[in-house]
Structures are given as C-alpha cells and as structure tokens.
C-alpha cells in the first residue's frame, strides 16, 4: 500500500495545533479565566451574565440598605426624642394640674410646654439629606406649621399620606416612612399637636380649669402611646432591612463563589493539559527532525 509521501506536512500541522493549544492554555493560566470568549463555554457565558446580574443587584441593595437604614435611624431617634419631650410635658402638666401652683408658675409651665411644642415641631420637621422624613411624598417642604391665630393654636400638616417602600431583590416590600399626620395628628385624642396646643391654651391665662387640663393631659398621654406605636413600624423596618441585607450579603457570597468557580480556570487541570501538550510538541519536533535527516530515502543508498 502506498502511503502519503508528504506526511511531514501533516506533522507540521499537528505541531501548529499543539502550539495553538498551548497558547490558549497559557492565556487561561495568565488571566486565570477559563471563559475568554463566548464560544469557550456558551452556556457558562450565559450563566455568567445572570450571576453577575444577581451579584450586582445584591451589591446595590446592600448599599441602598445602608442609606435607607441611616434615614430610618434618624426617624427612630427623632421619635425617641419626641417621646421623651412628651413625657416631660406630661409630668409638667401633672404638676400644674394638682392645684398647688400660683398663676406665674402655671404660666411658666405653659411656656415650658410651648417650648416643648416647638421642639416636637422641629423634630417632626426632621430633615435627612434634604428630605423631610415625616412629610410623606412632599419631602421638600417642612410638613408642620403652627398657626397661633386661634386659641388653642392649630398645628397643620402640609405633607401627604404617601408611603415609600424599598423592594428587596426577592420582592419583599419594606416600608420606609410613616406620614407625619399619622404620627403627630392622629384622630381624636391621638393627636400630639392637638393635645400640646390644648395644654398651652389651658395654662396661658395662669388660671387652670382643672377638669379640662386633666383631660387634656390624659389626651397627651394617649397621644404619647400612639407615637410609640408608630415608632414600632419604623423599628420593624430597620430590623427587616438589616435581616434582608444580611440574607442578601450571604446570597451574594454564594453567588460570587459560584461565579468564580464558573469563570476561574482550574490551575491543576490547565497545567496538566499544558504539560501534556508540551510533551506532544517535543515528541513531534524530534520525529520531524529525524524524518528530515538526509539519510532517509533510498536515493542516498544508490
């Protein structure tokens, strides 16, 4: 049987192939990445897009969470201050209502409560990075103003009932704010400002209508409890965000591991392949060298 007399050509193309193979393996080793083009692993490349998408989503959620947590903590601490101010107001009012104080002392208590009202108003108008956090959707306008045209004075709400939510990557909706009117201007005896303004009016003249003042003080107590209840919503949100953020971070760690495993070249495997390919190359070169020896054809024997 005749053989292909140009078998050296085939060997040289095998040598080329071995070299191309080595080039690819060396590229994998130096970059540490196994998928350098889509065709290396089409399904892997597609998965990589989705994994990176989730990782980046989680990353953004973690950043957003910390921003939101800051805002919620500011709201929480403002409400905490409101509670302590109102507690002070209640104890002042209780003192004024026991009938032992003279007119100027009562007036002074009225002034102190008036100061507390200002303090609570300013807390209710808390601004976090340019946003009034108790204004609902009207975040660029201070939500509470007090008009003293009438007695008792009237504190009105300029915000709205808008509630913002943050959506976690798994679709959970977390409440970001409670509207100011719900916290400070609850209906009936739940209104903080209503109770404070009423007390200020009660003590403004120096003579106390005890029955009225006691009833107003009780109303302030009710309003205080109501504020505490609303504060729970904020605290719940902080907990939810912290929990979500923790869960997301742990998912992100897993996803990053998966993505790294997907994309990273296995050094052991690639090194072994490279070593095999080098052995093959050496063998081919030495075979070609031997074949090229001038003693190989019959003409040299003639």
């Amino acid at each position, binding site marked *: 049987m005749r053989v*292909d007399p140009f078998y050296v050509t085939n060997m040289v193309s095998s040598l080329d192939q071995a070299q191309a193979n080595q080039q690819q393996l060396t590229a994998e080793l130096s970059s540490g990445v196994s998928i350098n083009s889509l065709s290396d692993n089409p399904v892997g490349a*597609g998965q990589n897009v989705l994994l*990176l998408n989730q990782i980046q989503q989680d990353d953004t959620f973690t950043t957003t969470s910390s921003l939101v947590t800051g805002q919620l903590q500011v709201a929480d601490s403002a409400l905490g201050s409101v509670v302590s101010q109102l507690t002070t107001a209640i104890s002042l009012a209780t003192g004024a209502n026991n009938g032992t104080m003279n007119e100027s002392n009562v007036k002074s208590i009225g002034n102190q409560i008036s100061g507390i009202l200002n303090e609570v108003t300013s807390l209710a108008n808390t601004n976090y990075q340019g946003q009034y956090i108790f204004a609902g959707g009207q975040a660029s306008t201070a939500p509470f103003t007090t008009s003293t045209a009438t007695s008792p004075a009237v504190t009105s709400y300029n915000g709205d009932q808008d509630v913002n939510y943050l959506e976690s990557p798994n679709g959970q909706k977390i409440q970001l704010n409670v509207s100011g009117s719900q916290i400070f201007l609850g209906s009936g005896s739940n209104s903080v400002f209503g109770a404070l303004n009423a007390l200020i009016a009660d003590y403004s003249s120096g003579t106390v209508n005890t029955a009225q003042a006691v009833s107003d003080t009780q109303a302030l107590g009710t309003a205080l409890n109501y504020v505490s209840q609303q504060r729970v919503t904020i605290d719940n949100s902080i907990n939810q965000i912290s929990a979500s953020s923790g869960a997301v971070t742990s998912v992100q760690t897993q996803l990053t591991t998966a993505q790294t495993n997907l994309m990273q070249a296995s050094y052991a495997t690639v090194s072994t392949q490279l070593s095999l390919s080098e052995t093959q190359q050496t063998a081919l070169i030495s075979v070609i060298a031997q074949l090229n020896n001038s003693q190989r054809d019959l003409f040299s024997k003639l």
Partner: protein
Amino acid sequence: MGTINSALSVMTQTLDANQEALNVMANNVANANTTGYTRETPNWQENPPLTINGVTYGQGVTETGATSQRDRVLDSRLDQQQQLAASTGSRLTALNTLQALFTPASSSTSTAGNIGSDITSFYNSFQSLEAQPTNNALRQSVLSTAGTLAGDISNAAASLNAQHSALDQQVGGVASQVNALTGAIAQLNQQIKTTSPNGDAGTLEDQRQQDLSQLSQLIGINQITTESNGLAITTTSGQLLLSGGTSIPLTTGTVNGVTDFFLGTTDVTSQLASGGGSLGGNLTARDQDIPNAISSLNQLAYNISTTVNTQNNAGTDYDGKTGTVANPLNIFSPTTTVAGSAISMSVVMTDPNQIAAAALGSGTGDNSNAIAMYNLSNQTIVNGQTPINYYSNFVTTLGATVSGVQTENTAQNASVTQLQTQSNALSGVNLNDEASSMSTLERSFEAASKVFSILNTIMAGILNLGEETTVT
C-alpha cells in the same frame, strides 16, 4: 523465423523503452515538490508477437508514454470537503470577530463595556433612587448609567455594522477570482479536448484539477464530466458556471445596500451562501450571523428605551411635572421602529430632575415610579423575557453558534486532511518508489545492453565465418 537481426531490433527497442521510462521517473523526481503535480507511471506495452510457420516469436516491448495516477472521484470528494471547510473557516473567522464584542466579564469588578452589566447597573440605579428619590447624586447616577448602557449598545451596533460592510467589500472581490478560474478551466477544457479527448491529459489535467481546487476554496461547485474529457461546472444549487469551452461570468450588483451575485440575470446570492467555499461562509456571516446579532441588539435597545421612556412619562418628576405629548420626559432618544434602535440609542435627558421617581399626582418625595422603573428589570419586556435573560440568551446563542461552527470546521478540516492523505498516497511522488523504480530500470537497461553486446558478438562470429579476427 527469429533472426539475430530481429533479436537486435528487440533489444534496441528495449533500450529505447527503458530510456523513456527513466525519463518519466526523472520527471517525477523533478516535480516531487510541485503543487498539483500528479505522479506518472510509464506504460509498457508488449509488441504483437510474430507467428512464422506456426512458431510464435515475441517482438519485445514499447513504452507508450506515461499515465498520471489520479482518482477523479477522490479528487472530487476532496474538492467538496474543501468547499465545506473553507465555508465554515471563513464563517468562523467572521464569528470570532463578532463574539469579541461580547467578551464575558470575568468578575463583577471587571465589567467595562459589558452590556449585561450595563443593563444591571442601569436598573439598579433606580433601586438606589428608591431610597432617596430627591437625591440629586442618585438621579445623576441614573442618567450616567443610562448613558453607559446606551453608549455600549450603540458602539456594539456600530462595530457590527462596520464588520458587515468590511465583509461586504471582501466578498465583492471574489467574483473576479472565480471568473479568472472558470475562464482558465474553460480554456483547459478546450486544450484537453483537442490533445486528449479519450484519455488522461496529464499535465493539463493537473492544472485543471488545481484550478478546481482553488475554485473550491472560493465557492461551492458541482463537477460533471462531459464528452471529450470535458468538464461542466455548476454551483452546488445547479446554476451553470461553465460548460466545455464557455464560462459564464459571475457578476456583482448592489441590492438593498449589499453586494449580490448574479449569473446572467439570476440572483444567486442565497444559493452561494449555502453552497460552500469561503464566499459561502462570508455570505452566511454577512447575511445571517451579523444581522441576527444586530437585530437582537435592536430588540433589546428598542424595548428598554420604550418601556423606560413610557414609565418615566407616567410619573412625576422632581419639578412636579409629568411628561406630555408635546413635552415628553424621555430618558432615551425615542424610537418608533425596532430596526436601527441599537445604533441610535442615546440618552436625551440632560436634567436629572426630569427623572420621574414619583407616581402621578404624588409629591416629589414619593418613590413608587422609581420602583416601577426598577421592576421593569424583572418584567418580560423584551420578546417575552426580562432584559437580562434576553441578553443572557443572546450571548448563549451566539456562543453556541460560534462553538458549533468551530466544531464543524475542525471535523471538516480533519476530513480534508484524511482525503488529502488518501489523494497524496495515490498521486504524490514518493522518492523511495522512484529510486527503486530507477534501479529496476537501470538494471533492465544494463541487461538489455549486455544482451545487445552478446548478440553483437554472435553477429560478428557469423560475419567472420569462424575467422575471429576480421570483424569484432
């Protein structure tokens, strides 16, 4: 009756025949490395014997020239396989350039120019905005991520268009090469018809085979043997390219902005695309692979732009305004058709205050519309898929196409190598063979000259009639 004279004549012929055979061998050795050369073997023919008075005498041998050792079926198979390999080879080159535009990001921190990450970052910027809808920096970041997304999609589309026109220019030049080859083959057909209508035409056929092989690199062809050792060639789908001494020129013309190929008045572009050869591969890339990629990007760009614009117009911006027909609040340049959406994708909004984070009628601190825009990323807004799934499927499909063509090309090249080996085994010049044949012929020549000198001595003896000194 056999005579010394006739014996001498037989030996003379033998010496001639051996010389001619040696000449064939010498020619083989000389052309051992000539591309397209087919090994030749001498034809030996026994001379018709002479019968005199019932006794038969052999009349020696004649060398009647050389026969090229070729297998037309094998050569034709090799040509066909070369057409396939050339087709997938050129398509693979084009696809490799194409897929380089969509190199996978190795990690979440090395995502520059990656459209998948751009999509994610863009929608994520709305999630950040959910936290503080009035924050100017966050609004600005929506516009900047939108700009990156639009820029990368538009750049990718522009690169694809550039590749498309480069391929178009490349294929245009093939027609003249094909015509030169078919013209040459037609001429060879004529020469072969006159010189060797009934047998192998040797060198002329070597040339014709080489032209066929070159033609096979360019386009897909069918070969049909005709009378007088002629050859007719059609494209793989049956349009006549040449018959006998007449070739039909392949012409080009511009149809719908791209180069099309014509035989006579018939547009054969799509047939050539599926036919094979480097032209087939390049046409497939030009008319199928690149347009597919562009159309996927168009679909993505169109759906992202329109849904985001629509949603932004459905909310209230930071200045309390809502988009109207006359004054729309568009983030991306508005498009009405899918075609061309990718390349024209850009961000037209310059004022970050125009991002409508709040729901219609809500205060500017509201974030419901920002949530709605973020949620677009999880909605099946692009051909029944979410944007990121659509992109993921796009890269998987593209990668699978490239990988498939790669595998095909490797298999076809292996097959070409096998066929080439088979063909070389038959038609290639093996120097060992030639050396051994030459030794044989040399021996044969020596034997003939020895016999000749013996006969000469005998003849001298006869002429001298026993007197050994007269004639030597």
